[in-house]
């Protein structure tokens, strides 16, 4: 039985009103905008913490709380309330969002201090926080949908924050449109849910699935639709193309939205819908496939990127691939996916902030080929980034090790060929991750100075370094804390009702220690290759060499993802549009005008019968008489 809480709405309302206040307040609030924004976010974090402790105070089975606000939509039996629901799964997200969010707010105060529109930036960040919280707190798919699009909007606004640059504006649009494709999936999912179960709330659908109201086909369709939504939002294959471009936004945005929180919404959606995927096996397999492909896809792109943010973005894509893959493994995977999600939130956000710090010191330069030897100039950044690096490549005892190792483990345990394939992919991914992250490390902080003239790298102010430090601490410790005694898994257990039974009790393909060893070996290989290529003594050209293999070129072009989209959708779409414009002008309107001019032609033709000759008029009379006579003759025949 779930309890209720009257606090939940404030989680959303405070940042939301703050955002509105900042936007409507205008320039008058320029001086205090960032403070208000940060306070709003912190307030939400505090509420989140309060709720968390309140939750811990309840029995594991009764930890969910709801708050019914008002009836949102009710037509016939389509009844959606504006209601909030907080359980352990949401709680993870609430804390991640508000916590990391607040840190990034703080970081942004300094990062954006020279920006004319900082107030607006904070408004958008608050808007994002509110939308993301709605996403995870909504008790129905439709409420989730609102948050879902809300974060999409915030993402659009933030990516395009400097939209006076056309490329940034385009990136924002691209992100939104790609997300829209995913939204189609979510829309369809809601419809299927409504038609099948008569309800769109999570509990309603879960009950419906349990009661067996839906056919397997319907469930698989529902699952596929949900997956489509997740793919769009989480930049998974084949809708991954927007994420790289999304790095156009200010770096804190990349850290918060495009690393820690929003892009993981897909994982949340799948986990939240575990009751569907648990029975929709085809959809579940699809989830696995998507996760596996994206994992490698992102990793491969990451190897070729010289732009530090894009390299990190590719890494994000890849890491989310891990999470998706984990969710695709069924009950055993959800918790590990969540765990990886949280640890990833820490270390990836930290690394992004570090990247931001580097850029801050390097005149917003993003090309790693123009970095080098920065460790001396920005020690804090180096350390925090380095800790994040160790976490992501999965060096024990950093956070990433615990979470990623588990995923590799359960992937191998999936059984049979599937297990071996998935396991190999995850291991390969780990090796590549180690390679390209080492590459980033080496190119940025080690080696020779390759800076542009006039660059004076310096450490960032403390408002920026403190969040980085906090996140670094998280990257170091989170994995260990979570994993201690399966604490995290147990925390989430009531949500997933996983007959978890244990991990460990089931027969493993390989013993955990062997898996860890394999993983570490893979990491070691990756790191070694990176050192061999980019390590001490290796000269890194400041311009990317062009005499590289086709594969490198392809990888640099994001594995041709944009080219494919362009060839498959944009071009034909543009042609279709042009064709339709012509059809509209010539055919449809033309037909109408044609009827008009035809009438006119007929008119001027028929008009000629009016010759002005009396005799021809008389002839008409005779012809008419003839016709009438003939007609009447015919009638009487």
């Amino acid at each position, binding site marked *: 039985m779930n309890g209720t809480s009257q606090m939940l709405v404030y989680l959303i309302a405070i940042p939301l009103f703050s955002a509105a206040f900042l936007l409507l307040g205008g320039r008058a609030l320029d001086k205090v905008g960032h403070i208000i924004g940060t306070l709003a976010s912190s307030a939400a974090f505090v509420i989140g913490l309060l709720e968390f402790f309140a939750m811990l105070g309840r029995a594991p089975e009764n930890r969910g709380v709801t708050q019914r606000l008002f009836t949102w939509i009710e037509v016939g039996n389509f009844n959606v309330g504006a209601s909030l629901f907080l359980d352990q799964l949401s709680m993870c997200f609430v804390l991640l969002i508000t916590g990391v969010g607040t840190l990034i707010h703080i970081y942004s105060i300094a990062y954006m201090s020279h920006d004319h529109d900082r107030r607006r930036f904070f408004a958008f960040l608050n808007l994002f926080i509110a939308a993301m919280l709605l996403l995870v707190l909504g008790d129905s798919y439709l409420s989730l949908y609102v948050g879902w699009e809300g974060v999409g909007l915030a993402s659009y606004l933030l990516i395009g924050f400097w939209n006076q640059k056309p490329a940034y504006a385009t990136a924002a649009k691209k992100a939104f449109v790609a997300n829209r494709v995913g939204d189609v999936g979510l829309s369809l999912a809601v419809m299927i849910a409504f038609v099948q179960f008569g309800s769109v709330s999570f509990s309603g659908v879960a009950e419906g699935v349990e009661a067996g109201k839906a056919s397997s086909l319907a469930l698989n369709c529902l699952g596929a639709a949900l997956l489509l939504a997740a793919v769009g939002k989480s930049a998974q294959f084949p809708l991954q193309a927007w994420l790289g471009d999304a790095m156009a936004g200010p770096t804190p945005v990349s850290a918060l939205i495009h690393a820690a929180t929003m892009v993981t919404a897909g994982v949340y959606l799948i986990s939240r819908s575990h009751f569907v995927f648990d029975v929709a096996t085809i959809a579940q397999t699809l989830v696995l496939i998507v996760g596996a492909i994206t994992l490698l896809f992102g990793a491969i792109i990451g190897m070729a990127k010289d732009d530090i943010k894009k390299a990190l973005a590719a890494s994000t894509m890849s890491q989310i691939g891990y999470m998706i893959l984990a969710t695709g493994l069924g009950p055993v995977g959800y918790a590990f996916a969540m765990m990886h999600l949280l640890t990833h939130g820490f270390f990836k956000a930290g690394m992004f902030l570090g990247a931001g710090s580097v850029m801050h010191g390097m005149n917003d330069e993003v090309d790693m080929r123009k970095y080098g030897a920065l460790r001396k100039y920005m020690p804090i950044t180096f350390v925090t980034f380095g800790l994040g690096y160790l976490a992501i490549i999965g060096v024990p005892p950093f956070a990433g090790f615990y979470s990623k190792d588990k995923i590799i483990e359960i992937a191998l345990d999936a059984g049979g060929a599937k297990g071996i394939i998935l396991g190999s992919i995850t291991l390969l991914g780990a090796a590549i991750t180690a390679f390209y992250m080492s590459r980033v490390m080496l190119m940025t902080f080690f080696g020779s100075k390759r800076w542009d003239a006039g660059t004076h790298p310096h450490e960032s102010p403390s408002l920026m370094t403190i969040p980085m430090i906090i996140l670094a601490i998280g990257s170091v410790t989170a994995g260990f804390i979570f994993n201690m005694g399966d604490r995290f898994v147990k925390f989430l257990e009531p949500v997933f009702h996983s007959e978890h039974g244990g991990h460990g009790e089931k027969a493993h393909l390989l013993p955990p220690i062997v898996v860890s060893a394999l993983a570490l070996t893979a990491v070691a290989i990756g790191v070694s290759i990176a050192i061999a290529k980019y390590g001490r003594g290796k000269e890194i050209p400041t311009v990317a060499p062009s005499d590289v293999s086709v594969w490198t070129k392809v990888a640099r072009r994001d594995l041709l993802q944009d080219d494919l989209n362009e060839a498959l959708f944009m071009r034909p779409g543009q042609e279709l549009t042009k064709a339709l414009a012509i059809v509209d002008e010539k055919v449809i309107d033309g037909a109408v005008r044609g009827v008009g001019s035809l009438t006119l032609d007929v008119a001027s033709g028929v008009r000629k019968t009016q*010759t*002005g000759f009396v*005799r021809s008029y008389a002839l008409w009379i*005779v012809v008419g008489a003839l016709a009438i006579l003939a007609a009447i003759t015919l009638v009487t025949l």
Partner: protein
Amino acid sequence: MSLDNYLYLSALLFTIGAAGVLIRRNAIVVFMCIELMLNASNLAFVTFSRMHGNIDGQLFAFFTMVVAACEVVVGLAIIVTIYRSRRSASVDDARLLKL
């Protein structure tokens, strides 16, 4: 002989009159052709009057003659007027009004 022959004659004369209206160009001749058509109708009236043994047909023919006379007066007056203005009695020349 059947009385029908008178009707055939009437129809024939009527048709010829109509053809005259269509073919001739002199307004007066056209008008004479119309008179021919009226006369043809009168023949039909008189014949039918005889067929039915009913004097109404003759009455009709009588009225037709009066009407025709009136038409002739007005018609010729109009034709003369237009002739005086245009120096032409051809109906084809009166075609300022057209299309």
